[in-house]
């Protein structure tokens, strides 16, 4: 299959990183799609957890919200939200946490709180939700993001969640024992942190993407790995699985009455 969108490539590239052994704390949007594509293709035994309390869920359609009924109906069990955050997230049972970002810097620090000054914001964003502790409690963090100079910035306005801080051993210096961001998957490329500096480095370009395209949509000066791969294009199975999932989702969510 040759025809695919950058967002499809991003979602499928993220899905490929997941295994049957992973326990994922799933957010809405691209992470949810990626996790479920993984579950429906190569990782049927992956454990998906949504912060609404649903453990081991296997939704037929993607949830519109983090607490859709479908998640509970297909889950192994559903626990209270305080238990979710205490026993499961803080308890260190999640191997992979997914985060998105309104602003991201080269060290994987994320802002989803405000644009501008916190007390007099230009734009008040929704805020962190679970992100501050997801970022430090999960074994590692995968970030998905569509590239844009507006969102991939030299300096974020607010540390909603901590990535590698100023880089290097900044996490360890704060007493954080988890790995933090180990993967950034955008619509153009796959990035991994440099082992020492922790700055994100491009390791693989999606098909048809050039170095210039990555740099033009990124607000910091991009580092590329010495040997740069091309991300394998989505297979037919991957793409059909994703599109079927999205078609089922669109059909399901168009229901409901209009008047409230």
């Amino acid at each position, binding site marked *: 299959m040759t025809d695919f969108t950058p967002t499809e490539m991003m979602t499928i590239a993220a899905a490929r990183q997941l295994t049957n052994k992973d326990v994922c704390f799933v957010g809405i949007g691209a992470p949810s799609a990626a996790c479920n594509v993984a579950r429906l293709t190569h990782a049927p035994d992956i454990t998906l957890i949504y912060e*609404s309390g649903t453990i081991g869920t296997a939704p037929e359609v993607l949830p519109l*919200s983090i607490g859709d009924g479908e998640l509970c109906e297909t889950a192994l069990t559903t626990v*209270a939200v305080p238990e979710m955050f205490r026993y499961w997230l*803080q308890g260190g049972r999640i191997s992979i946490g997914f985060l998105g970002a309104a602003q991201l810097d080269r060290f994987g620090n994320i802002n989803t709180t405000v644009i501008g000054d916190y007390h007099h914001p230009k734009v008040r964003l929704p805020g962190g939700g679970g992100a501050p502790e997801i970022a430090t409690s999960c074994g590692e963090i995968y970030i998905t993001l569509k590239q844009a100079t507006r969102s991939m910035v030299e300096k974020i306005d607010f540390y909603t969640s901590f990535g590698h801080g100023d880089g290097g051993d900044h996490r360890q210096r704060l007493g954080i024992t988890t790995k933090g961001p180990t993967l950034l998957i955008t619509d153009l490329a796959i990035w991994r942190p440099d082992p020492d500096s922790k700055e994100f480095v491009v390791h693989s370009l999606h098909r048809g993407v050039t170095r210039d395209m990555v740099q033009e949509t990124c607000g910091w000066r991009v580092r590329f790995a010495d040997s740069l791969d091309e991300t394998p294009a989505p297979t037919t199975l991957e793409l059909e699985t994703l599109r079927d999932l999205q078609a089922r989702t669109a059909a399901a969510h168009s229901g409901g009455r209009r008047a*409230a």
Partner: protein
Amino acid sequence: MNKFVPLSQAVRENLNDGDVVAFEGFTHLIPHAAAHEAIRQGRKDLTLIRMTPDIIYDQMIGMGMAKKVVFSYAGNPGVGLLRRMRDAIENQYPRGIETVEHSHSAMAQAYEAGAAGLPLAVFRGYKGADLPKVNPAIQSITCPYTGEELATVPSHRPDVTFIHAQKASARGDILIEGIIGVQKEAALAARRVVVTVEEVVPDFKGLHPNLCILPHWTVNAVAVVPGGAHPSYTHGYYARDNATYLEWDAISADRERFAAWMEEHVMQATPDAFAERVQGL
């Protein structure tokens, strides 16, 4: 004391101007009918607590009822931003509001600590994050055994908590099932508890012994409001009305349209309207 009262009475007797109040529900079981009744009764200067203030707090803020919001994620779930809340924060319209912002983990554990009768929640959180710089309520303690510095937040102790549930027994015990969220904790943390339910059943005999139940003596008032969570959903009764959530984005984007919508669908409506709204869902 008869626990079963009309919603208007339950709100009138339990929610006062200036109260600290939680209308809780985690996507599921959001107490829309109770919130609309509070709006109709015109309560003022409320401190609104909620992990995920969504449409109902956007509506209350847009109606100028809130002086403060304590929260961890202020979005229209799966849709986008809360436009009335943004307008209040960015432009002080219709009035400025104070915000006290936490993470989900902190909020959930603050309810849990409130239910447990403690003045604070202790947890591993906020490491490297900026919220402690802008929220002075976030403090820390040092573990006497390991020396680890752990975050603390004050426990939530609302004056009153409103929740929606599937069933009440004839005695007023409350059953919540499905995504149970933080409702049990939010209720047990509060001085007063008001519950709207889909229906009343004689008792809970024959149900599994470990279900999530609030005994009748923990609840101050129960109002039967079928459909009372709409456009949120009630597991086992009706599905989420996603179209209405999407529609809210446009309604709330415009001050005039918001005001007109509130007048028609809230101020001129009654709790009975909810049953009709969930027909076919």
